[in-house]
């Protein structure tokens, strides 16, 4: 069993699907921050079998919850103060996401005007469908 020390103040992202923490690390822009980050891969989980955990030192403002909600709204966000969990944030699928995913439609205006932000809106929560705000093209993960 690997031990990672406690944290005075920060955020713990728990129940990340095993193997996804590195992707989340980059998508949250944690590589650009100077705070301490601990990444635990393949930790044992009663609920999930295996899971990843990210511990991030500092305030909640460092993490874009919309990005997290889009990536996996089942991730648990624990807020730590004085080495205690003071709050558990529930994630939901964001109504709108900006510059997290990018439109691949060659007919979309974003294909020729590079300075435009890539904005997607949640078109259908049941099917987790996001569509480009400009051309309405459905986002396909692969």
């Amino acid at each position, binding site marked *: 069993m690997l031990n990672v020390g406690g944290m005075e103040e920060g955020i713990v992202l728990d129940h990340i699907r095993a193997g996804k923490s590195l992707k989340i690390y980059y998508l949250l822009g944690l590589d650009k921050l100077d705070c301490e980050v601990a990444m635990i891969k393949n930790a044992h989980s009663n609920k999930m079998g295996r899971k990843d955990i990210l511990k991030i030192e500092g305030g909640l403002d460092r993490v874009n919850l919309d990005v997290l909600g889009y990536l996996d709204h089942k991730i648990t966000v624990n807020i730590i103060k004085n080495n205690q969990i003071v709050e558990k944030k529930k994630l939901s699928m964001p109504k709108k996401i900006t510059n997290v995913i990018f439109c691949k*439609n060659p*007919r*979309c*205006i*974003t*294909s*020729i*005007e590079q*300075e*435009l932000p890539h904005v997607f809106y949640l078109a259908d929560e049941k099917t987790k469908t996001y569509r*480009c*705000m*400009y*051309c*309405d*093209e*459905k986002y396909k993960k692969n």
Partner: protein
Amino acid sequence: MIKHVLSPLDFSVQELEDLMDLANDIEKYPDKYAHACAGKQLATLFYEPSTRTRLSFESAMLSLGGNVLGFASADSSSAAKGESVSDTIRVISCYADICAMRHPKEGAPLVASMKSSIPVINAGDGGHQHPTQTMTDLLSIRSLKGSISNMTVGLCGDLKFGRTVHSLINALVRYPGINFVLISPPELRVPDYIIDDVLKPNNVPYTECTELEEAMPKLDILYMTRVQKERFFNEEEYLRMKDSYILDRAKMELAKKDMLVLHPLPRVNEISVEVDDDPRAAYFKQAQYGKYIRMALILTLLRLSGAVPMELPS
């Protein structure tokens, strides 16, 4: 607050009714509106050629006593120098009171509307939206049939790539008693998302068939579109199917006496010229309605006298 028209669904059914009432009043009393836009200017920003839509907008503004300015292709605009849509609209906002934009890239009018200080009307953006064509179709149906409800609407031809067809389906499902007959070769049938996301959730009855003759007797409206040769997978299939989607006098014999034939135009050979004299052929009248609905739209967006007061969508 400035209002823009980017999609036909930007208007509620009631708002569309108000707009169509105004268009019908313009048709009836054109003199009343002849100076309604005096001193106002419409900019037609056409990044790709479209004679019909551009002239319709220009004719609409001129008939309202206003002026027009603009360009008819990207080559003759600053886009050729690499200017963004956002910059162009900021400049045009200094010169004109309202603009109509056609652009080959989808979403360009939305980008313009986000930076514009004048109303932006989407005059067609790639394969995405063409709201004034849909409004033209609705006005034609309502004016010539008396209502848009309780009708069997046949859509014929290229139902896969046809933007006007998808847009019209989206608009018509909001009216009661609409029933669709979708007539196309199997390669060009309506996309699954139109069936799964539009027709089924709205409980709109529809049937699909490949033969126009089979559908003709049931229809109250026949909306024709062109079947392009290049859409077929092979020459043999094209030759087998092409005549099936050409409307001629013989097929018109099978239709109801009060059926209407509509077509967004331009037509190539999908409607034989011999049908033009049939009183049920309404496609040139439809082009006329295109002008009236654009006049109504310009008046309404500019909030000028003569316009029916209405709350536009944000």
